[in-house]
């Protein structure tokens, strides 16, 4: 006779659907959250590797060692520049391989000399001003801080991320509605025993606690199922994407930290269900004398 709850929820038809609803929502929610995380990771990678860096292209015909040496000296003495490094031709070529392929790059394609400039943290270097100054030393030099295309890309990514989070919020709202209706129907089905418990001096929190336990069990069943299904989908996705190597797409697989963060979705589903059930019951009981 050791029962979890006094209220016989196990006989209740109306609770059957809740785990499925929660499972579906957690499945979609986890995927949405994963998308948001991947985008956010990507943006961060672009941000940290490309900002704070300036690339200077020196046309090959102007790349005589002493000229380059003079240029590097000028750059080193410029305020706000932390490090300067002229890339050896092999390294410059290697950068182009993912874009043009081994064949083209290896066949003696003339590649400009690249100078990699690291901006000191907190400093800002205007590429236009820098270019104007350097052109005096070397004709045809080009200074690029990747801002133009990077900021458009980051904007797009941020928008996608916000959209994913907004969808996640809508899914959470639907979960609340589903739990409210399930709980209300539970209150109606079990009104006799609820009135009886109330008459025996059960506090509202005691009765609400029983609904809360029930909501937790249902949501846990659905939430863990939905999260597991989403995990499988993400693994398949990562497996299919394993061959894709691109400078644009940093990586399509989630870090261990991201995986743990994804567990926030089923955990929130369970917490939201418990809290919603509790509030719904407390509001209904407040009407009793």
């Amino acid at each position, binding site marked *: *006779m*050791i029962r979890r709850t*006094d209220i*016989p929820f196990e006989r209740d038809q109306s609770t059957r659907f809740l785990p499925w609803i929660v499972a579906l929502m957690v499945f979609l929610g986890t995927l949405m959250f994963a998308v948001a995380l991947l985008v956010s990771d990507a943006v961060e990678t672009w941000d940290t590797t490309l900002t704070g860096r300036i690339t200077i292209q020196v046309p090959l015909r102007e790349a005589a060692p002493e000229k380059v040496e003079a240029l590097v000296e000028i750059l080193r003495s410029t305020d706000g520049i932390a490090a300067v490094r002229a890339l050896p031709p092999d390294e410059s070529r290697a950068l182009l391989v993912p874009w043009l392929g081994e064949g083209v790059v290896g066949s003696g394609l003339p590649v400009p000399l690249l100078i990699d400039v690291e901006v000191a943290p907190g400093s800002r270097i205007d590429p236009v001003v820098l270019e104007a100054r350097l052109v005096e030393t070397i004709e045809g030099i080009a200074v690029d801080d990747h801002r133009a295309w990077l900021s458009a890309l980051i904007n797009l990514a941020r928008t996608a991320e916000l959209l994913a989070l907004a969808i996640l919020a809508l899914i959470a709202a639907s979960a609340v509605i589903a739990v409210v209706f399930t709980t209300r129907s539970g209150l109606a089905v079990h009104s006799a025993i609820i*009135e009886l418990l109330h*008459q*025996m*001096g059960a506090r509202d929190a*005691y009765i609400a606690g029983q609904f809360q336990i029930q909501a937790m069990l249902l949501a846990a069943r659905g939430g863990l199922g939905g999260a597991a299904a989403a995990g499988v989908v993400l693994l398949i996705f990562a497996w299919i994407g394993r061959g894709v190597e691109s400078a644009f797409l940093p990586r399509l697989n989630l870090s261990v930290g991201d995986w743990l963060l994804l567990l926030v979705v089923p955990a929130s589903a369970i917490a939201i269900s418990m809290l919603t059930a509790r509030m719904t019951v407390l509001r209904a009981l407040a009407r009793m*004398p």
Partner: protein
Amino acid sequence: MLRFENVGMRYGVGPEVLRDVNFSLAPGSFHFLTGASGAGKTTLLKLMYLALRPTRGLVHIFDRDISLTPREELPALRQRIGVVFQDFRLIDHLSAVENVALPLRVAGAENVEINEHVRELLSWVGLGDRLDARPSTLSGGQQQRIAIARAVINRPSLLLADEPTGNVDDRIAVRLMYLFEELNRTGTTVVIATHSNALLDKFGHPVLRLNEGELTVQRGKPSATAKPS
């Protein structure tokens, strides 16, 4: 222990079911409540067990004015009141033992403690062999005894029973009355609503009589009080 002052009660916009009800129950007293069907016995009991609030007048229970008692403090008062409902209100998904155990669970007792207590009491009311039966598989009289066991399991300060012997034969009725008297002897204030004049005569406790919504109190006949053997 319990006091009604000029209590009036109406359901919705209907006529007054109770009018100017005045009475008080001393701690440890034993009263019958009687009156024709529809006279308002159940309504009066509901006011006493705090399921209804009067439309006018004052209800004092355990020396508290109910209209001034905050809602959060009512559960503690209700836990001290045992009720046998006219329609039993047993929960059919629960076994006899589980039904009787409910008030103990609500009061936060341990499971082991509950088990022993409940089985003992159910045996006492003659249901020792139907402990795990569902209420719907039991006779009306057996259900009534479960309802009574549930009302007294917590040794309430106030026991209110609405027709508790309506469905049992005379022999069991007397046995149940002894149970109530036993409880009364340990300090519980008892009110039993009944139609049975035989019961009133046999036990001779004071009588609250309802007639068309008005209440009169009749003193008991001490000599007639039955003693358990």
